[in-house]
Structures are given as structure tokens and as C-alpha cells.
């Protein structure tokens, strides 16, 4: 799929990669095409691509001149850290806000949260990222600027590739706080859309469950409010919530491209952006593969969670 799509893109990778003078020389152009296998028919290119995939070979990036798999291994953890933090933040805040709004229905806090969540959904990520960068870093100077960690501190030995985790593993508290500081703003910016979305869905899911007979029956049993909320209400509400969350995390990944570009976050998003603008096809296909795999994993996790939450969908 990624192969077809990337090859359908109108544009000549040769023109994007070679300079003006080199382009004028047919011999150089032919040589470059041959080097990158572009002189063969498309089906042969595809067969070679598949053959490579099976061997874990994603081809060589035309920009970095390194194997794409090596590039990805370097950039994927950074994105996982950023997206993971954003997912965590949006789950915690989105669900919490949604529950509060539902429990305080039609009161001031409900109305406020609903308006704020609408803002979160409507504001474009790139604009918010620019604004946050300008206000918090440039104007107020309360957050560190770009990158993942203070360059002066060096970095902890890579174990997982996640700066925060690696710093903790190495016992480097200074690197950890710096990494968290660098993570907060881009993660929040990235999470804002999902927070807004989850707030709205959680609110309606909780309100729906609150009207169910079994919640009234639970109250008739004299259970304390918090037990009813966590065991009876949230459990049922989680089913629609994780459905939406799974979908939202997909769109969150596409948001990383913009956020990474603005915060100079050395992740897959930036890599994808650079490779796309230079028509570095092997790299673009590599990113496409990674994103596809992540989608699959998210969907698998959501499906497994359905079974954990609701016994009726469990396999007998």
C-alpha cells in the first residue's frame, strides 16, 4: 500500500535530489536512477521492495545515505516518547474532565469544560504549537526550547531510546528533569485535541451510564458514591471511551509531524517531513510502514481491552 501510494505521487525524485548542473547531464541522471533501482519496471521495484522487507531491509535513504531501518531506529523512540506522553496526558485529563462535567451536569464547571474542550478540538495543532513556543519559551521563558534534553547535560546511555526512562535507569536525575521539561509543552500541545475529544465523549458516555437501571440499583444497595462511580459507571463508560481513544491516537500521530517540526523534536515526524519534501521514497515508505504497524498495534490493544472490560465480548 505504501509502495503504491508513494509511487503514485507526481514528482521526480531525481529532480528533488540532484542539483541543477547534475540534472543537465543525462549520464549522471541515468547513473543515479540505476543506483537507486529506479530504472527497472515498477513491478520489479515492488518485488525488490517486498524481498527487502522480508529481510528487514527497508532500503537506503537517498538523503542520509544510511539504511532506512537505522534511521528509523534512531527517530522512532523519540516519537514514541512524545506520543506516549501525549496519550497518557490526554487519557488522564480527558477522562477526568469528562467525568467531572458529567457529574456536575449543567453547572458552571460543566459549561466551562465543554467550552474548553470545544476550543481544544477546534484549534489547529500547528498554530497552537507556534503560540506555545512563542509564549512559554520566547516571551515567558518558563519552558526550555527545542530538542529533547539540554545539550550541556549530554545524554544517558541509550537502553530504551526514551530519554526520560533512560535517564531514570542511569540514575541521572538532572537529565530526567531536563527531559521532562522539554517534553511537557510539545506533549500538551499534541494532546490538546485528544483531551477535548475525550472530555466530550467521556461526558456523554458517563451521562448515558448514569441513567442506567444498574446504577440506580447500585445506589439502592447503599454503596458509596465513589464505588459506584469507579466500579459501576466508569467500567461501562470505558467501552465507548477506548473506541474513541483508539481512533484519536491515530490522528495524534499525524499531529506529531507538525509539532516535531516546530519544537525541533528529532522524531519520525520530522524525518517524514524531510523525506517527503525531498521525495526520499525509501524513507517515506519506511515511515509509512511504521505508522501502519502502530495503527495495527493500537487497534489490537483496543480489541483486547474490549474483552478485558466486557465479559460479553470475550471468546468462550
Amino acid at each position, binding site marked *: 500500500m505504501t509502495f503504491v501510494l508513494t509511487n503514485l505521487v507526481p514528482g521526480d525524485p531525481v529532480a528533488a535530489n540532484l542539483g541543477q548542473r547534475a540534472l543537465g547531464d543525462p549520464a549522471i541522471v541515468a547513473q543515479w536512477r540505476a543506483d537507486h533501482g529506479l530504472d527497472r519496471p515498477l513491478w520489479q521495484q515492488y518485488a525488490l521492495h517486498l524481498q527487502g522487507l522480508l529481510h528487514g531491509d527497508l532500503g537506503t535513504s537517498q538523503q542520509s545515505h544510511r539504511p532506512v531501518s537505522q534511521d528509523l531506529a534512531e527517530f522512532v523512540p523519540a516519537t514514541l516518547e512524545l506520543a506516549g506522553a501525549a496519550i497518557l496526558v490526554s487519557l488522564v485529563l480527558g477522562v477526568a474532565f469528562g467525568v467531572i462535567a458529567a457529574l456536575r451536569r449543567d453547572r458552571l464547571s460543566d459549561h466551562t469544560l465543554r467550552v474548553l474542550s470545544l476550543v481544544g478540538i477546534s484549534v489547529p495543532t500547528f498554530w497552537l504549537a507556534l503560540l506555545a513556543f512563542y509564549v512559554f519559551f520566547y516571551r515567558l521563558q518558563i519552558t526550555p526550547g527545542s530538542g529533547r534534553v539540554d545539550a550541556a547535560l549530554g545524554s544517558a546511555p541509550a537502553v530504551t531510546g526514551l530519554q526520560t526512562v533512560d535517564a531514570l535507569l542511569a540514575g541521572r536525575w538532572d537529565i530526567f528533569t531536563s527531559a521532562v521539561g522539554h517534553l511537557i509543552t510539545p506533549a500538551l500541545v499534541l494532546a490538546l485535541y485528544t483531551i477535548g475529544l475525550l472530555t466530550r465523549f467521556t461526558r456523554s458516555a458517563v451521562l448515558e451510564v448514569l441513567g442506567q437501571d444498574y446504577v440506580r440499583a447500585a445506589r439502592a444497595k447503599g454503596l458509596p458514591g465513589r464505588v459506584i462511580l469507579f466500579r*459501576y459507571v466508569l467500567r461501562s463508560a470505558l467501552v465507548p471511551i477506548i473506541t474513541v481513544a483508539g481512533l484519536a491516537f491515530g490522528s495524534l500521530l499525524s499531529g506529531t509531524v507538525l509539532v516535531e517540526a516546530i519544537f525541533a523534536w528529532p522524531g519520525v515526524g520530522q524525518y517524514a517531513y524531510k523525506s517527503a519534501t525531498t521525495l526520499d521514497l525509501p524513507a517515506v515508505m519506511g515511515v509509512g510502514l511504521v505508522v501502519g504497524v502502530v495503527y495495527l498495534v493500537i487497534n489490537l490493544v483496543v480489541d483486547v481491552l474490549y474483552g478485558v472490560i466486557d465479559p460479553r465480548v470475550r471468546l468462550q
Partner: protein
Amino acid sequence: MTLDITGLKVSIRGKAILGGVDLSLREGQVHGLAGESGSGKTMTGLAVLGLLPHGSQVTGSVTLGGRELLTLAPKELNEVRGGQVAMVFQDPATSLHPMLTVGRQLTEHMRHHLRIDKREARRRAVELLGKVRIPGAEEAYGRFPHQFSGGMRQRVAIAVALACSPKVLIADEPTTALDVTVQAGVLRLLRGLCDELGLAVLLVTHDLGVMSAVADEVSVMKDGLVVETGPRERVLREPAHAYTRSLLDSLPDSERGPRPGTRGDIRTEES
């Protein structure tokens, strides 16, 4: 312990629902509350436990053994709910949580109200499941509501209601959602439990056939008021109020009035 409802008035957003209901439940007796849909039967039951919908206003008095329930603080009310006054709802398909095991729903409030440990709660729960005649109680403990039939689910719901040995049981149309064939079994169970445990039962129903089978006392409601109350035999045989008469007249002939010995049969079968 007796439950006395006097002058109970309920209005929701200014609209009067109950216009001064008087009822009295005594231990060991089933009090049937009849009336058509919208007459306020269910609201009466819910008002006792403070489960009315948001925006409801309640006046009057509901006392349990002389203790006023309507003005209780939330925490004290929670001790009465489930602990002293329990409730069984109309549809067991929706009144049991679909994602929690029967055992969990049976033991949760038990552990909370009676402050007993997990093992003791489990033992009691299995015993209760046996008492409400669920076959294979031990195994049923770990199953989910959807793995039971409607009648069995309602038995589970009754077991849940009885878990903390309440004094009063409010059963809101407990057989309406069930097949006719299993209705009798559930009613027989309720009647038997009432006799055995000395429960005061408020049986809310629109079905006079159900009423004639198990109730000791019968009250008839119309438009938020109790229009007639008295012993079952008298109310169903010689209704004093025109509305009761019209309710009885609307029954198909075969079901009309209490059949002689009906209740007696049920009693002997259970005890």
C-alpha cells in the same frame, strides 16, 4: 420492623407526581400496590430510598421503625439502603451490571454494610444463591448476568437485595419483564422469603392477578393518590372505590378475583 409512609408528596420540576400517599408495611406481610402506569406506584417505592430523579421535591414522612428516612444525611441513608430497606427492580436484564460477576454484585454491598471479609461474604453469597433456588450456586457465583435466563436473573437480583438481611423489601414490578411461565416461581419465592425471614414486602404491580396470588394487603393508586386500601380479600372481592372496580372489570374473566385457596397453595409449597 414497620415502614410507615404518611402524607408523601412528590413533585418533579413543579409537576405534582404524588399527592399525599399513606401506606403501612408490616413484617411478614406482602403489601400489594396496584394501579395503572403513571399512577405513582414506582415513584412511591423510589421515594422511600431517596432514589427519585434529580429535581424532585419530597414532603411528608417515611419512617422505618419510628426513624424518619426522608431527612437522613447521605451517609446514614446509604446505611439504610441495602442494609435495612432493599429494592428489586422491574427488569433484571438492566438492573444487574452486565460486566460484573454475580458474585461481585452479591458481595460488594455485603462487605460494605456488614464489614465482613471476602471469604465470609462469598460463603454467604453462595448460601443466598441456594436460597433463591439457583441451581449450582457455587458455580453461578463466578458467572455473569448474561449467562442466566430472565427468571434466574431476577432470582439473582432478589438474592442481591436480600444479601444484607434487610427488614423491608420493595419489589417494583418484579415479574413484569418475565415470561408468564417463570412469574409464578419468582412470586412463590418472594412469598416464601417474606414468611421465612419476616420481611415487610411492598409489591408494586399493575397486574391484579399477581396481586391476588401473593398479597396480604392491597392498596390501589390513581393519579398519585391511594384510593383504596385494605385486606386483599375485601379489596378484590368487594371493592369500595369505583376505580378499583373498573380495574377489576378490565381483567379477563378467568383471572378475575382471587381464586379460592390460591395463596394458601403457595404458602404450603414454600414452607
